[in-house]
């Protein structure tokens, strides 16, 4: 369900921002960003700060590796928006073919054994966390 208030912005400021950023981007501002602007006293800035820390903060994982993990969770949860969005960011720091091989079958993809074993943990976390 897409609410009109999210689609167009819930305040004059949000509406103006959505228009300006869409123009600068040369594309329709994705719904993920529209949701982040919605009722800013509720979830947007808090979730944004957490996401920034997890995805861009200091880590032994590269930004591309973390974006690929996000795309993998999206794949396991059948979320085509997040697969597309985070695959597109991942391939700016890794080979297209590696990202696609991983999304097809991470067990056989040409990735490090550390990343492969970590993806197994994340798959269990996402799909089989029953105890």
């Amino acid at each position, binding site marked *: 369900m897409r609410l009109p208030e999210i689609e167009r912005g819930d305040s004059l400021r949000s509406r103006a921002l959505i228009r300006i950023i869409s123009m600068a981007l040369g594309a329709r501002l994705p719904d993920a960003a529209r949701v982040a602007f919605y009722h800013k006293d509720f979830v947007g800035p808090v979730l944004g700060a957490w996401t920034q820390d997890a995805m861009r903060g200091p880590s032994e994982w590269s930004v591309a590796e973390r974006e690929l993990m996000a795309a993998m969770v999206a794949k396991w949860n059948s979320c085509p928006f997040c697969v597309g969005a985070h695959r597109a960011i991942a391939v*700016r720091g890794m080979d297209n073919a590696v990202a696609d091989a991983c999304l097809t079958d991470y067990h056989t993809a040409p990735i490090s054994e550390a990343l492969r074993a970590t993806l197994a943990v994340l798959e269990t976390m996402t799909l089989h966390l029953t105890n």
Partner: protein
Amino acid sequence: MKAAQAQAAIAAGTTRQQLTDAAAVAALFNIITRYANALDFAIPTDAEFEKAAAMMLKRGYA
């Protein structure tokens, strides 16, 4: 199952901190994917995903 997999990851060279960082990414995207699907996010074209990716690398998430 999970403990054995975590131990296998450490045996494969993953550090404990890397496991923590990866778990944070997965926890976050287990929430975000549910938002995206519940709110029926429109699916951009490949070209639009690429433009948005450039913006997300430059500007980040905050």
